[in-house]
């Protein structure tokens, strides 16, 4: 089952879906164009690109495990990655 989901995850990332696609993309703060996260300057307006990728934006919108940083759904009692008990109330992930 785990292997199947890994294969599916890899396939989806090839089509631009998933967390790996988010990590690979940055939005220019000046012209809003989508750029590769490896770039330092925007290819359209030459302004400096932020270091925070779409993945950071995604994490900032959700609650995360305090131990391993895994993004958690609202109804989770235990972290699905490291298994620690999730606190009832926890802060949003920092950027």
């Amino acid at each position, binding site marked *: *089952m785990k292997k199947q989901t890994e294969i599916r995850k890899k396939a*989806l990332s090839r089509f*631009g879906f998933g967390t790996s696609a988010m990590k690979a993309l940055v939005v220019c703060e000046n012209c809003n164009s989508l750029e590769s996260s490896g770039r330092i300057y925007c290819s359209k307006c030459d302004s400096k690109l932020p270091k925070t990728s*779409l993945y950071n934006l995604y994490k900032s919108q959700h609650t995360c495990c305090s131990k391993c940083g895994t*993004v958690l*759904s609202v109804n989770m009692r235990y*972290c*699905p*990655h490291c298994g620690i008990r999730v606190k009832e109330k926890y802060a949003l992930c920092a950027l």
Partner: protein
Amino acid sequence: MVLVLKEKKTANFRIVPDKNGNRYEFFCDLSYALVCTTAPIKKDKPEEELLFAWETEGRQHFNKCQKCGKWIIDAMFNPDVFTCVNCTPIEEYPDYCPECGAETKDTGYFCHICGTRLLYGGEMEDEKAN
């Protein structure tokens, strides 16, 4: 549970006037990334022009969230449940049951201890509401 979909015909956009008409720039509703800039379009009515721009050039770059109705790029879309990643986070097969904390045995969709469905936590919440 009643799903209320906000009817949003197009993604966020900006009009850029051009000598041959208006260009439309469409933005992702979640990341605010500029996804598409159309060729100049000239129509009699502004609404007609916008919809033409959206249908011919803009729409193909976006996915619609089935929960909140936002138009988003592929990277911010959860294809497992057809929602944006804000409505349902992307999930991987868990090493521990999110409900009881037991280590999963990599056997299937359900926890071998408590019977909780192991994938799509965001959807489980909807089922409880039903």
